[in-house]
C-alpha cells in the first residue's frame, strides 16, 4: 500500500484567501494510502521544504502530493527537494489549486470542493507512480546563432569568447542588422557605427566564429544537444576567397536598383555592398537585378573588369548540414509597411513623409546625403519638421495593439538632431504619451524639449499637401482645440513587427509565436530568453519590440544559457519518456508511425513462443530522441508502449478519482 504525504500550500493568502485549505488537508488525510496530510503558509519556502523532508523521515513516506501553484512553476523545485530524500523525485504529483482553482473561482465553497477533487485525483495518480531515473544525452558544444544584428553579434561573441564554436547566420549580404543603419543611439548620443562596427570586425576575425551571410535555415532535426541543421547559403556569384573588396566592379555595373539598406532613398548596383563598412567587406551579385543573370542582356562587365577573376556567374546555392548543441534565434524586427494602413497620411504618395529609418539614413554620414538632412522630394533643407508617433502602434483597428517601446526615445533623438543640425528649424512632435522607462531616458527627453522641440499631445488625423506645405491636422488635447501644423518634412515613427519569415523558421524549430509573430518565450518573467523547445534560445527584438540596451542584455543572457548547456558533456534527459513491454507488443508498428521524432523503431528479438525459440519484431524506444509526447501510448491498442510519468494506469486512476 502506498504511503503518501499530502502538503496543501496557503501560498500566503493566494490560496488560503480563496478556499478552505484546512478542510482540503483534512479531506486529503482521509484518502486511501495517505499517511500524512498537512498545510503550510509557503510550501516552496525553505521551511516548507524542510516540513516535507521531516514528514518523509518521520512517517516513512514513499510518495508526495503537493497541492499548490501550477506544476509549471515549482514541479522542478520539489523534484530537486526530493533528490536528497529517500523518495525518488518522480514519486511526486502536484495539484494546481492556485492558478486553476483559487484564483479563478469566486465561490469559496465551490473552490474548496474543487481543490479536494484535484487533490484526490493527484493522490490517485501518485499511487500508480513508479520511481524513474533519467537517461543522459551527449552535447555537441557548437552553437548556431540565426540573425546577425546587434543581438546575434553580441550572442555569438559571448559564446565564442567562452571558448565554444559558433556559426553565425545572416540572410542579408552583410551583418549589422538595423543598428548599423542608425546615426546616433540614445540616450548617450554616441555614434552607432563607432560602437557596432568594432564588434562586426571582431566577429569577422574571431577564430571560434564561422560567419555565413546570405544564409537561411533550411531544416532542423534532432533535439537539444544534437540539432542537425541544414543551412542554405544563397549563391553570391563572387568568390570571396579571391576577392579583395577593391570595389572596381561596383563602379562599372550598369544596373540601378533601389537600395534596401538605404530604405529606398537611393539606388545601388546589381554587384554591391549594402554600405561602405559592410562585413564581409566584399560585394555579392543580386540575381534579380543583374542583367546577365536575368538573361536580359549579355553584360558581364564586372567579370571583364575584375582584376582577380572573382566573378563566377555559375555559382549555385550551397546546402551545408551540421550538428549543433544549441540554437539562438536573433532575427530582429522590421518596420511595419505603413502606407497601405494609413491612407490618411498620404498612403506613401508624398516622398517627404518618411519613416524613422529613412530619416536615420538621411542623417547618417555614410548615408545617401552624407549626413545632411535634405528632404527626399527636392533635396532642400526642411525648416518645419513634424514628427508623428505611434504610426501602426497602439492601433487595434489598422495596425497593432502593442506599443513599440523604442520610438518615444528615438523620436526625441530625431528632434534633437534636427534642431542641432538645422539652425532655425521648428520641430513639432505629435504624441499620446512619452514613455521614458530607462536610465537617463527622462533626462534625454528633457534635453529634446530644452532644444526647442514642441510636444503636442494628440494623434494626427490627416496629412495633406497644400501650397507646397504638408499640413498635419491634429488636436492639442491639452487645450482641447484643433490645430494644423504646416511642415516641409514629416517623420512617421512606425511600429516594429517581427522579421518577415519568422513563422516558417519557428515552425522548423517547433517553437510558437504569438498572434503578431513575436517569438513566444518560455516564461515572460522567469525564462525570458528561453523557448519551449529545450536548447533553442532567443535574444533581441524577435521576442518583442525592444531597444538596443535590452537587446544586448538579452544577447548576453542567451549566450550565458548556451554556456550553461555546454558546461556539461552530457545533459540529463527527462526520464518521462516512453517504454515498451515486449511481452505485450505484437509488432504492429502503430506507434512507429505516429512518433514525431522517429524515436520508436521495430527491432527483431529472440523470443520463446509455444513451439520454441523464434525471432519476432517488437518496438524499441530511443531514449535520446523521445520527447515524451505520448502519441505512441495513445495509438497502442494493447497498451504495450506506455509513457512513463503519464502511464495508462496513472491516467485511468486519475479519471476514476474525479468521479468518486
Amino acid at each position, binding site marked *: 500500500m502506498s504511503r503518501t504525504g499530502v502538503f496543501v500550500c496557503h501560498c500566503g493568502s493566494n490560496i488560503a484567501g480563496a478556499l478552505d485549505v484546512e478542510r482540503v488537508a483534512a479531506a486529503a488525510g482521509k484518502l486511501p494510502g495517505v499517511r500524512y496530510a498537512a498545510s503550510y503558509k509557503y510550501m516552496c519556502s525553505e521551511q516548507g521544504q524542510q516540513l516535507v523532508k521531516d514528514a518523509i523521515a518521520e512517517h516513512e513516506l514513499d510518495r508526495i502530493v503537493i497541492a499548490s501553484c501550477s506544476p509549471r512553476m515549482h514541479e522542478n523545485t520539489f523534484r530537486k527537494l526530493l533528490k536528497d530524500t529517500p523518495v525518488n523525485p518522480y514519486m511526486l504529483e502536484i495539484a494546481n489549486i492556485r492558478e486553476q482553482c483559487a484564483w479563478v473561482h469566486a465561490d469559496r465553497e465551490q473552490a474548496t470542493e474543487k481543490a479536494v477533487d484535484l487533490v484526490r485525483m493527484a493522490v490517485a495518480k501518485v499511487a500508480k507512480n513508479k520511481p524513474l531515473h533519467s537517461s543522459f544525452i551527449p552535447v555537441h558544444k557548437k552553437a548556431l546563432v540565426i540573425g546577425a544584428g546587434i543581438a546575434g553579434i553580441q550572442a555569438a561573441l559571448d559564446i565564442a569568447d567562452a571558448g565554444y564554436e559558433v556559426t553565425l547566420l545572416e540572410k542579408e549580404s552583410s551583418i549589422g542588422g538595423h543598428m548599423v543603419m542608425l546615426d546616433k543611439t540614445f540616450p548617450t548620443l554616441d555614434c552607432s557605427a563607432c560602437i557596432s562596427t568594432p564588434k562586426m570586425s571582431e566577429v569577422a576575425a574571431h577564430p571560434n566564429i564561422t560567419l555565413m551571410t546570405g544564409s537561411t535555415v533550411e531544416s532542423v532535426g534532432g533535439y537539444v544537444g544534437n540539432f542537425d541543421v541544414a543551412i542554405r547559403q544563397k549563391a553570391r556569384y563572387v568568390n570571396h576567397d579571391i576577392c579583395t573588396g577593391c570595389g572596381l566592379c561596383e563602379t562599372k555595373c550598369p544596373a540601378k536598383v533601389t537600395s534596401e539598406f538605404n530604405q529606398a532613398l537611393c539606388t545601388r548596383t546589381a554587384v554591391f555592398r549594402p554600405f561602405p563598412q559592410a562585413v564581409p567587406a566584399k560585394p555579392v551579385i543580386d540575381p534579380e537585378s543583374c542583367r546577365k543573370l536575368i538573361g536580359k542582356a549579355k553584360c558581364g562587365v564586372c567579370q571583364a573588369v575584375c582584376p582577380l577573376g572573382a566573378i563566377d556567374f555559375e555559382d549555385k546555392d550551397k546546402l551545408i548540414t551540421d550538428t549543433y548543441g544549441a540554437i539562438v534565434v536573433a532575427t530582429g524586427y522590421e518596420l511595419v509597411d505603413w502606407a497601405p494602413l494609413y491612407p*490618411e497620411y498620404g498612403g506613401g504618395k508624398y516622398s517627404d513623409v518618411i519613416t524613422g529609418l529613412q530619416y536615420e539614413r538621411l542623417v547618417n554620414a555614410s548615408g545617401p546625403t552624407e549626413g545632411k538632412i535634405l528632404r527626399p522630394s527636392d533635396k532642400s533643407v526642411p525648416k518645419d519638421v513634424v514628427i508623428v508617433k*505611434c504610426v501602426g502602434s*497602439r*492601433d*487595434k*483597428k*489598422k*495596425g497593432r495593439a502593442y506599443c513599440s517601446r523604442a520610438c518615444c526615445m528615438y523620436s526625441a533623438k530625431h528632434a534633437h538632431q534636427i534642431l542641432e543640425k538645422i539652425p532655425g528649424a521648428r520641430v513639432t512632435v505629435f504624441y*499620446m504619451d512619452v514613455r521614458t522607462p530607462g536610465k537617463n531616458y527622462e533626462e534625454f527627453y528633457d534635453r529634446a524639449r530644452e532644444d526647442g522641440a514642441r510636444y503636442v*499631445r*494628440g*494623434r*494626427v*488625423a*490627416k496629412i495633406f499637401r497644400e501650397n507646397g506645405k504638408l499640413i498635419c*491636422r*491634429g*488636436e*492639442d*488635447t491639452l487645450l*482641447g*482645440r*484643433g490645430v494644423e501644423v504646416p511642415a516641409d518634412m514629416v517623420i512617421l515613427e512606425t511600429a516594429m513587427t517581427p522579421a518577415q519569415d519568422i513563422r516558417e523558421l519557428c515552425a522548423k524549430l517547433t517553437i510558437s509565436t504569438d498572434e503578431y509573430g513575436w517569438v513566444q518565450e518560455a516564461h515572460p518573467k522567469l525564462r525570458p530568453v528561453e523557448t519551449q523547445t529545450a536548447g533553442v534560445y532567443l535574444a533581441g527584438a524577435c521576442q518583442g519590440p525592444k531597444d538596443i540596451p535590452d537587446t544586448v542584455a538579452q544577447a548576453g543572457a542567451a549566450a550565458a544559457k548556451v554556456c550553461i548547456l555546454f558546461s556539461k558533456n552530457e545533459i540529463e534527459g527527462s526520464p518521462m519518456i516512453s517504454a515498451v513491454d515486449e511481452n505485450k507488443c505484437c509488432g504492429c508498428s502503430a506507434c512507429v508511425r505516429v512518433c514525431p521524432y522517429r524515436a520508436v523503431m521495430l527491432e527483431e528479438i529472440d523470443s520463446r513462443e509455444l513451439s520454441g525459440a523464434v525471432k519476432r519484431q517488437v518496438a524499441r524506444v530511443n531514449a535520446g530522441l523521445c520527447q515524451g509526447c505520448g502519441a505512441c501510448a495513445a495509438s497502442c491498442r494493447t497498451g504495450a508502449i506506455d509513457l512513463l510519468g503519464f502511464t495508462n494506469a496513472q491516467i485511468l486512476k486519475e479519471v476514476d478519482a474525479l468521479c468518486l
Partner: protein
Amino acid sequence: MAQLQFDNSAVLAEKIAADAGVTLSDCYQCGKCSAGCPMSASMDIQPRQAVRLLQLGMADELIRSRMIWLCASCHMCVDRCPNDVDLPALIENARYQAQRIKLCAVPEVGKFNDIFMENVKNFGKSQEVILEGAYNLLSGNLLQDMGSVPHMLRHGIIGPEIRAVREREHVRRMLTEAEREDEGC
C-alpha cells in the same frame, strides 16, 4: 470654471453608451477624432471631450452642448479611431436624450429638422420651397439665401407645384408610430 463633479449623470452616460453599443473604456483620449472632425473649429466641446464627459459620467454637460447639434455625422472619426469607438452613434443617442427633455443648444438645427419632418409627414416628400420658406420665417434670418431665389425660379429649379406621395397617409401613420417607439427607448 467650477470644480469637476464626476458621475453627476452617470446613469444617463451609461444609457447613451449602451444604446450606441460603445464600450467607453476603449477610448484612450488620443484626439484623432477631434483632429479629423470638419466641424471641430466651431464646436464648444471637441468630439474627444464628448467621450471624456461620458467616461466621467457627466452626460448632462454633453446633452446641453452645441457640439451634438453641429455634428454633420460624416463618420470621419469612427473610420479613423484606433479603438473603433462609434462616436457618431454616441452623439446621435445624446441628441435623442436631449430631445426627450426638449433641449437643443443650436435652436436653428432643431427647427430645421422639425420643419423637414413635418414636411415629410404632410407630403411624404421634402418640399424645398416650404422647407426654406418656413425655416427662414421661424429662425428669424428672413433673407438667408434669398439672393439665389430669382435664379432658381428662372431656371425652374424651384416652383409652386407640390410633389406628394400618393399614400402619404401611410407615411404619416408610420412616422407617428415610429415617433412613439422613439419616445419609448
